[in-house]
């Protein structure tokens, strides 16, 4: 006779196995490893937070300390491989298989382990894609999450760094999985309930804040004149003519420069109210001057940012905050917002090839995708029109009848022609291809595909790929802004000139911009201290950014 509640039975037996360590739902910190050994079975699919910013660090350490005769061959499914312990699991034989999205700080070590065969790679995903699979074929059997606080019923407050937690917990709890949360403290009453206690099985009080990485802070002091020039080009050559109100910025110095140029250069161009008012964006400190100057209506965030909590609390008209006053972030919904409710994505990358495919993968580093492929792609399911979207659609396909012609999301890649260590941004062949060969992957890890890219902005100018009619034009539009890289020097000068005459390539002077005007004095804030002042002393930057 077929039984239909096998997963429920298994869940119940896990709970029973963990019960001896718990008083109600609360487990003492010293018993964490023992709890994990009791609840997790060999071969389980385990989700460990592992988010972009927050890390369930206590649980990671405890998991890396389990007896590998009891717990082994785990299949880890997690957004971010960030802490050393995340990879220790593989070296120690506790985990075997991995599906993930981002591995910035561990990009070198994870490459070594992949090449060395210590990790069986499922796939590298983008965030929303991974969350989606939690509901179809990568549902976690155990979720190890981090929250700020819990009450004794197991209700959780995840606060500003809510991030991925709701997506993870819903999938796990409602498919008979076990949810174990580490919290900074257990309290009598939570500021607000982010995760209901019904969905949580065990809670461990760590006694100290979970680890958070300050990923989205860029020191204005490090912004160069060239980055300012690219920012000016983007604002005047793309934001203004398309009238981009709803957007997402990938993190980087070029976009930080754009943020800091809105109250100055943007103001001078008369663009306030006409662009950049609604954002899917983490709380970038570099957006503070634009917020204070009245540019921003609303921001929805993927996560929070270290030091910004008090500022956010004081600006509830702009940010998503709960009845308790603190931010509520949600990576899954912000990703969806980026896909369907934003008219433009703009971000940086490490390499771009002649078709416009871009990648951040190099031969010895595997950083993963994070959220960029999502944000930097054209959502073909979109139906509602907007001016930028329709305009881009028209440029891409001028001959089709307007009523049947979908719009296009603006996907902009911005950067200097030579990057860190003078490595060229433009290459004939992406390093990602070499990596795919080495790891025997079906696909080379491409961040943003060329057929999604609409514009490329460098210090040499803007290439509008929407206006290119064939591959040859596309290739030379790219060569035409590739500066003095080998790719740039390989341009057909006549063809590039023709493209310029058609407006496919526009140089700074075509937009009335003098490169010598790209001066740091244009930045609304030139230091972290300036940002603190702009915020009325509400922004509290992490120690490593202080020079006072």
């Amino acid at each position, binding site marked *: 006779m077929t039984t239909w509640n096998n997963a429920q039975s298994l869940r119940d037996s896990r709970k029973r196995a963990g019960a001896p360590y718990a008083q109600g739902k609360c487990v003492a910190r010293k018993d964490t490893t023992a709890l994990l050994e009791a609840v997790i079975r060999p071969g389980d699919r385990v989700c460990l937070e592992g988010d972009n910013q927050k890390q369930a660090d206590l649980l990671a350490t405890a998991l890396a300390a389990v007896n590998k005769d009891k717990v082994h061959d785990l299949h880890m499914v997690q957004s971010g491989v960030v802490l050393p312990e995340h990879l220790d699991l593989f070296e120690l034989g506790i985990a075997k298989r991995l599906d993930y999205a981002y591995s910035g700080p561990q990009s070198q070590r994870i490459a070594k382990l992949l090449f060395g065969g210590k990790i069986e790679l499922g796939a590298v995903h983008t965030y929303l894609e991974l969350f989606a699979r939690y509901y179809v074929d990568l549902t976690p059997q155990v979720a190890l999450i981090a929250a700020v606080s819990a009450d004794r019923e197991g209700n959780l407050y995840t606060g500003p760094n809510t991030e991925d937690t709701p997506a993870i917990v819903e999938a796990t709890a409602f498919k008979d999985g076990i949810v174990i949360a580490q919290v900074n403290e257990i309290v009598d009453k939570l500021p607000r309930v982010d995760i209901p206690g019904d969905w949580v099985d065990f809670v461990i009080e760590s006694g100290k804040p979970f680890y958070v990485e300050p990923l989205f802070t860029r020191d204005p002091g490090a912004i160069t004149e*060239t980055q300012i020039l690219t920012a000016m080009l983007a604002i005047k050559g793309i934001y203004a003519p398309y009238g981009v109100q709803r957007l997402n910025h990938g993190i980087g110095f070029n976009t930080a420069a754009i943020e800091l140029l809105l109250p100055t250069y943007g103001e001078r161009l008369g663009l306030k109210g006409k662009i950049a008012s609604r954002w899917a964006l983490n709380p970038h400190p570099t957006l503070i001057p634009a917020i204070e100057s009245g540019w921003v209506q609303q921001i929805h965030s993927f996560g929070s940012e270290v030091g910004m909590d008090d500022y956010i609390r004081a600006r509830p008209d702009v940010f998503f905050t709960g009845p308790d006053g603190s931010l509520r972030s949600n990576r899954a919904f912000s990703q969806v917002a980026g896909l369907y409710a934003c008219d433009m994505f703009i971000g940086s990358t490490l390499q771009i090839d002649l078709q416009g495919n871009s990648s951040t993968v190099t031969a010895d580093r595997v950083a993963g995708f994070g959220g960029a492929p999502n944000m930097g792609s054209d959502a073909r399911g979109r139906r509602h029109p907007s001016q930028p979207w329709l305009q881009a659609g028209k440029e891409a396909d001028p001959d089709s009848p307007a009523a049947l012609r979908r719009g296009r999301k603006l996907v902009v890649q911005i950067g200097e022609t030579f990057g860190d260590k*003078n490595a060229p941004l433009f290459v004939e062949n992406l390093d990602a291809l070499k990596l795919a060969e080495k790891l025997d992957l079906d696909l080379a890890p491409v961040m943003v595909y060329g057929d999604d890219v609409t514009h490329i902005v460098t*210090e040499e100018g803007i290439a509008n790929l929407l206006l290119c009619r064939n591959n040859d034009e596309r290739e030379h539009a790219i060569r035409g802004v590739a500066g003095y890289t080998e790719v740039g020097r390989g341009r057909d000068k006549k063809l590039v000139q023709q493209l310029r005459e058609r407006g496919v390539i526009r140089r700074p002077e075509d937009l009335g911009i003098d490169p010598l005007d790209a001066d740091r004095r244009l930045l609304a804030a030139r230091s972290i201290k300036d940002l603190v002042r702009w915020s009325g002393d509400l922004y509290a930057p992490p120690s490593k950014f202080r020079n006072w």
Partner: protein
Amino acid sequence: METLNYRNKAQQRAKGSKRQVIVGVVASGNLEVLAERVLPDTDCEVDIRTAAEGFGEVWQAVVADFVERRSPGGLKFSINDGGARPDTVALRLAQAVSAIEGERT
């Protein structure tokens, strides 16, 4: 360290009467450019000492474009380079010409 030298013909003499200017600082990713009005009106020389070896072709292209666009006749540019990118080099050369022609302070 690598030493490079380029002599080109310029279309016309650089404007103004200032005898020399210096722009930039020698640091990682940066360079200094000393511009001196010491050559015949149609000549231009760029003398480079650079910490980044093997980029001769790139320097040549940058200098050629610069001479064609800015016509810095009569000027000798002496560069100490700490491994700056071509866009920074082009910027400093433009700043040097701008300063010696007296366009901006």
